[in-house]
Structures are given as C-alpha cells and as structure tokens.
C-alpha cells in the first residue's frame, strides 16, 4: 500500500482549490477594471478605489464595523476562553448539559433566529439599539467559537503539568496564568481573530440588532449589492479580503513557528532528560 498522492487525489485537490479561489480572484481582478461593466475588460485602473475612499457613508460604516469587531472579539475571547476551560477541565457540575448546549447550539443556529431573538429581548428590556446591542450580539455568538477552539487545544495538551503545579500548592488561578494560558495562547489568539472576522462579516444578526447611526459595512455592502454588481463594491471587497487574508496568514505563520520551536525544545528537553 503506497502512501502519498494518486492522480485522483491531486486532481480533486486542484479542482477543489480552483473552485474555492476562482470566484474571489475574479472579483479582485475586476475591481481593477476601467469599465463599469463586469464582463468587459477595458484596461487597468484604480479609479474605483479612489471613488470608494470618497464615499463618506461607506467609510463611516467601515469605522463602526471595526469598533464593533474589536470590542466584541475582545470580550468574546475572555468569555470564550473561560467557557472552553470549563468544558474541558471542570468535570461535571450542575447544569453542565445546558451549558454545553448553549456553547454548541449557537455554532449551528440559523442567524435569522439568533438575530430576531436578541432584537426582541433588547426591545423587551428597552435597551436602545445601536453600537452596544450589536456588540452584545456579536460577543454572544463569537464566544462559542472561541470556546470550541480553546477546548480543542486544551484537549490536545497533557493536563499532568497543571496537576503537578496544583499538587505543589500553586493556586488554580496562578496555575492558569503561568501554565495553561501560555500553552493555549495560540488558540486564544486564533479565537480572537476568528471572532474579529466573524463580527466583520456578519450581516443578518447586525441587521436585526443595530439601530440608527450604527450601520455596519456588511449592511452597507448588502444594500448596494441588491442593486447589482459594481466595481466599487469589488474594490471594497478586495480591500477587505486583502486585509483579512494577510492578517490570518501572518498570525498562522507566527503561531506555526512558535509551535515548531516549542516542539523542538520539547524534543531537546526529552533528549537531555
């Protein structure tokens, strides 16, 4: 039995990645199109980017979106890390089933339900809709993603080190900050990034929970997309894709390098020991 790739494997990978990337690449290419028509190539131009930078409404929406994404992902990371720790380290406690249900259900819950239910609650408690309500909504669904990422990292990490620290009298809080947190740091960073992009991306939940003055970028893009494909939108999308892609690539390369370094150190330590 040979391990490695057959022609079928290579073919399916190529077709699969072409399918995943071609639409985005075409979108990027046509954002540099001189012509307003999407299918007619009329030469290279950056005029749509200039136009985009003069669109006040769009820039305001981008600013609101960044603020929401930054705030919500920070809160979501703290809450989600706690939740991940509880699921994988705290054993059983009263209401554990409900807790894990509330962690896993939002991952698959249709957005229209989450959005509608949060909105109705904000109205019921007479909370004015705007920046705060969108942020609360985003924290709620992002923290579940963080919890899952952190929990799977914790599952792959030997808990005997934590137990050793606690046996030696290290209080649980200090054990967490000195031992657990450094180990799960890549997962925490990944969780923050994931929350950030989820928040940047969300149209449905934001449409339900926002109020006047807090229109987010996806809402703005959506209202223009309904009118048809335009090069300005392509330009906005290209900027967003570029930002997110470079951020994610950088972050994953950094965590990858740290991981390789840690593995090398562990091997060295084992060789010496």
């Amino acid at each position, binding site marked *: 039995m040979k391990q490695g*790739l057959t022609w079928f*494997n290579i073919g399916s990978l190529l077709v699969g990645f072409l399918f995943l990337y071609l639409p985005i690449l*075409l*979108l990027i290419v046509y954002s540099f199109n001189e012509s307003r028509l999407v299918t007619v190539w009329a030469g290279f131009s950056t005029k749509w980017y200039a136009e985009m930078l003069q669109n006040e409404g769009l820039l305001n929406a981008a600013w609101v979106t960044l603020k929401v994404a930054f705030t919500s992902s920070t809160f979501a990371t703290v809450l989600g890390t706690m939740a991940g720790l509880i699921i994988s380290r705290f054993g059983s406690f009263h209401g554990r089933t409900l807790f*894990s249900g509330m962690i896993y259900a939002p991952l*698959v819950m249709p957005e229209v339900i989450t959005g509608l239910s949060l909105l109705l609650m904000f109205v019921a408690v007479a909370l004015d809709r705007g920046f705060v309500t969108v942020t609360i909504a985003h924290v709620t669904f992002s923290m579940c993603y963080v919890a899952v990422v952190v929990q799977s990292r914790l599952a792959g990490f030997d808990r005997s080190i934590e137990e050793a620290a606690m046996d030696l009298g290290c209080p649980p809080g200090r054990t967490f900050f000195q031992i657990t947190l450094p180990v799960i740091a890549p997962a925490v960073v990944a969780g923050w990034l994931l929350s950030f992009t989820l928040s940047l991306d969300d149209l449905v939940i934001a449409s339900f929970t926002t109020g006047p003055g807090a229109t987010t970028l996806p809402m703005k893009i959506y209202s223009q997309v309904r009118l048809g494909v335009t090069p300005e939108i392509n330009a906005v999308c290209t900027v967003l894709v570029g930002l997110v892609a470079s951020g994610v690539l950088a972050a*994953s390369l950094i965590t990858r390098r740290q991981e390789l370094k840690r593995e090398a150190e562990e091997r060295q330590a084992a060789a010496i020991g």
Partner: protein
Amino acid sequence: MAGTPSLPAREPLAAEHDPAARARRLKLSRAAVISVPYLWLLAFFLAPFLIVLKISLVEVRVAMPPYSELITFVEDGWIAFHGSLENYLWLWEDPLYINSYLSSLKIAAISTLLTLLVGYPIAYGMARAPRQWRFALLMLVILPFWTSFLIRVYAWIGILKKEGLLNLALTQLGLISEPLTILNTDTAVYIGIVYSYLPFMVLPLYANLEKMDLSLLEAAADLGCRPIKAFWVVTVPLSLTGIVAGCFLVFIPAVGEFVIPDLLGGSETLMIGKTLWTEFFNNRDWPVSSAVAVILLLVLIIPIVLFQRQQERSARAEA
C-alpha cells in the same frame, strides 16, 4: 516553603493551613468562573428564546413595540392572560409558510449531499498528501472561510448572471449558443451553499481521515480487497463521525440561510430564512415572525441536539 529558608518569610493565609477552608475557597472560585460565561449565555442566548416564544403568542399592534401584552395586571392582584395560538394557525393556513419550511429542508438536504460529494475528495486528498504539505493545504481551505461570507456570495453573482463570466466563457468555447439562466434559480442557491459551507465539511472530514490507521488498508489489500472496495468497507465507515459532524455543520445553518437565497435565488426560491426576514422587515409583523422562528427551531431541535451530543462526546473522548 519550609525547606527554602532563603525565601523571604511570608505571612501564610489562614486558609492555606485549613484544608477545609481551602477546599471551600476553591469551590467558590470554581463557581465564580463558571457563572460568568454561564450567566452571559443565559441572558443573551436562552432568555431571548423565551421572549420569542412569548411574542409568538400575542397579536400584532400598531405601536412601539408592535405587539400586544401577554400578561396584564388587573385590579385586586389578578393577572389576565391574553395569549393565543392564532399566529401558529395562520402559519398552518397560509401555504406560503409550510412550503417555505419544506423547500428549505429540501434545498438544505440536497446542498449538504452535494457539499459532501465535493468535500470528501478534497479532505481525502489532503489527508493523504505528504506531511509537510498538509499545513499549507489546511491553510488554503481555511483562508476562504475567513473572508467575508457576503463577499463570497456576491462574487458568484458576477459569474452566474446572464451576461456573466461563466456564460461568456462557455459561449467563447463554443459549448453553448444561448446564455444559460443560472442566477436567480435554485441551482444558483445550491452552488452558493456548497461554495460557502465547503470548509465546514472539509475540516471535520480531514481531521478524521488524517488520524486513520493506514495499516488497515494494507491489511485489506493483503487479504485481496481491491482499493475501491477497501474505500467503501474500511475508509468510509471509519470516517463516519467526520461525515456526520460535517453534515450537521452544513445542514442546520443552511435550513435557515437568508443571504444565499436572497442574493442568488429567484422570486420562486422559497426558504424559511427569507420568509422570516420579509415578515419582519417588510411586513413588520413581529408576532408572526416569532411564530416562524419557534417552528423553525422545533424543526431543527433534533439535529441540533444530536450535533451537540456528538460534539460533547468527542470533546470528552479527546480529554
């Protein structure tokens, strides 16, 4: 601490000496850690559903908030209950809603199957690739997942429309003489869902296939099993947990999908997420939208509970 006299002497806390007090304190701090995310989720995930349930029982009203009260306090400490199942009866009577639910389930089921068919070969290819490539391949699958959902759906409009890039390419290759109508049909919705949800299918499958013990395939081959048969009797059954997880991750959110049917589907593409959106934003009927949401949740509750059980089981198995 007693064995290290070089350390500055520190006044030990009483609790450190008394094991019972220490255990009590530990229990208290444990409860405190649990309560923070717990209370957050109770307040912002569970409580909102109860409010949806409540509003689905009342009537629409021209006011703010645009619904009537469920419970009012009348004199002498009595409370009056004004709930009715009228909104649910309305969902039952108007064929629009039933058709939307059925059509959503059908579209989600077909798309899930298509996503599995497209995703499995990719995950399989990744899992069998040389070890040093796997990280890069994984990144390539994850990267589109990080780029905006809305943008990825939008990108398909330019490709699928009548004077779009797909028709242009097919005409120039001489494969078709008349442009195909794909945008604003159910086909476009299938393409959109498969494209957007593909990473959700590939990732659990890859995680599963990568862990597979290849010596089992060797054993099968030694016993005279042909590779294709070995795939069906060894690889597929072993990857069943990955298949199930991927299908849940695609199917459940796809049933309630709004953006894809709205942007890529046509006027006759019925999906319940779109119906709920219209009911809420265009008709401003909050009670009926709430009833739509309650029924949608009831439809999805079984797959959601199964998904949660499976996640919980695999979390415990890993730990």
